[in-house]
């Protein structure tokens, strides 16, 4: 079976105007990546750039404990009592255990995609507490780090009901849209050139990317949307605000691509 060239697939996926079922989109991308990255099992895509570089794998393994202080501090915030006696833990089923794997979620009542950060702030707001700045590593980063750790090992299980499909589709379109002064799309690097080296660093494929957030960089938790904003800036594009519909929908699309891969949160990074 001959596969289309990466640029041709890129163009086809980007130009598709009908609402392709999400599962079909995911399967197409996985199939392409299997052909493009022979010898790398799909499960290892979750290692990101380290899937393609043994030195990076060793470094990540050696620094596995980097997350411990961040997660510990996140646990403190998670269990801290609000003025009304409740806590973040009380806002989520099972105290937050095994929940992060289903985010982002589509909220049918609000008709919005809700990320973990939004759900955390919804909890704070509903209990009269000050909300966290979504990009603040000292609060939101730590809480997300702890909450995601409660789902380590769980398979990503993002659902896209029919009512949410347009939002998934917007995320897909944005992922494939050229943006900014450098005219890159997310897919330019992470799909078209997955596994190749940009500078000295292999480019991680989109499947598996959403499993390991937040990452721990310089002792701070960096969430997926913070990283996306950094990428957009380096592309010479004005980054969408954290919590914007655009970033939420890209995160929705991207996380769906990692469905069935286990979460391994808070991995160390120095890149």
């Amino acid at each position, binding site marked *: 079976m001959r596969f289309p060239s990466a640029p041709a697939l890129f*163009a086809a996926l980007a130009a598709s105007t009908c609402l392709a079922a999400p599962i079909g989109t995911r399967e197409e991308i996985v199939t392409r990546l299997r052909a493009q990255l022979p010898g790398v099992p799909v499960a290892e895509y979750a290692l990101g750039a380290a899937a393609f570089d043994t030195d990076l794998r060793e470094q990540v393994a050696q620094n596995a404990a980097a997350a411990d202080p961040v997660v510990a501090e996140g646990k403190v915030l998670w269990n801290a009592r609000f003025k009304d006696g409740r806590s973040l833990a009380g806002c989520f089923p099972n105290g937050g255990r095994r929940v992060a794997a289903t985010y982002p979620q589509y909220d049918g009542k609000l008709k919005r995609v809700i990320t973990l950060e939004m759900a955390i702030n919804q909890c704070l707001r509903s209990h009269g507490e000050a909300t966290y700045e979504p990009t603040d590593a000292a609060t939101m980063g730590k809480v997300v780090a702890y909450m995601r750790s409660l789902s380590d090992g769980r398979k990503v299980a993002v659902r896209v009901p029919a009512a949410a499909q347009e939002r998934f589709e917007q995320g897909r379109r944005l992922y494939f849209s050229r943006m900014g002064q450098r*005219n890159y799309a997310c897919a330019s690097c992470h799909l078209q050139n997955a596994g*190749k080296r*940009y500078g000295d660093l292999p480019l991680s494929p989109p499947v598996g990317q959403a499993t390991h957030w937040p990452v721990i960089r310089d002792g701070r938790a960096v969430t997926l949307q913070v990283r996306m904003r950094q990428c957009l800036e380096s592309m010479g594009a004005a980054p969408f605000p954290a919590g914007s519909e655009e970033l939420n929908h890209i995160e929705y699309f991207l996380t769906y691509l990692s469905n069935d891969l286990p979460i391994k949160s808070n991995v160390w990074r120095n890149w």
Partner: protein
Amino acid sequence: MRLASFLLLLAALCNTVAVAQAPRAPPDAFTSAEKGNCIACHQLPGVPAARTRSDVGPALEGPRMRALGRAGIRDVIEDPTRANPQTVMPPFGRHQLLDRAQIDSLVEYLHALP
């Protein structure tokens, strides 16, 4: 003694020739992340001082550059999407990532690669 002097002179001459032929380091427009950042995607096999593992774009070597010619190199840097709409190479000229002088410096550098 005269033989020794001759040999010394010969060695000095050889060294001078070797230094003259060593490929010079790429210009700032090639290496700076804020400018072309060409080095992020392209290797320069003929320039040991600029060794990288980048492989998003093809390796840049003198014979290929001279086959393109200065005008061809300039066109690619200015707007590679004209020849290949699917390329991930940025349109450095069209999107004003690089100015005329920077593109000129890159054209001359690439055209002279070993």
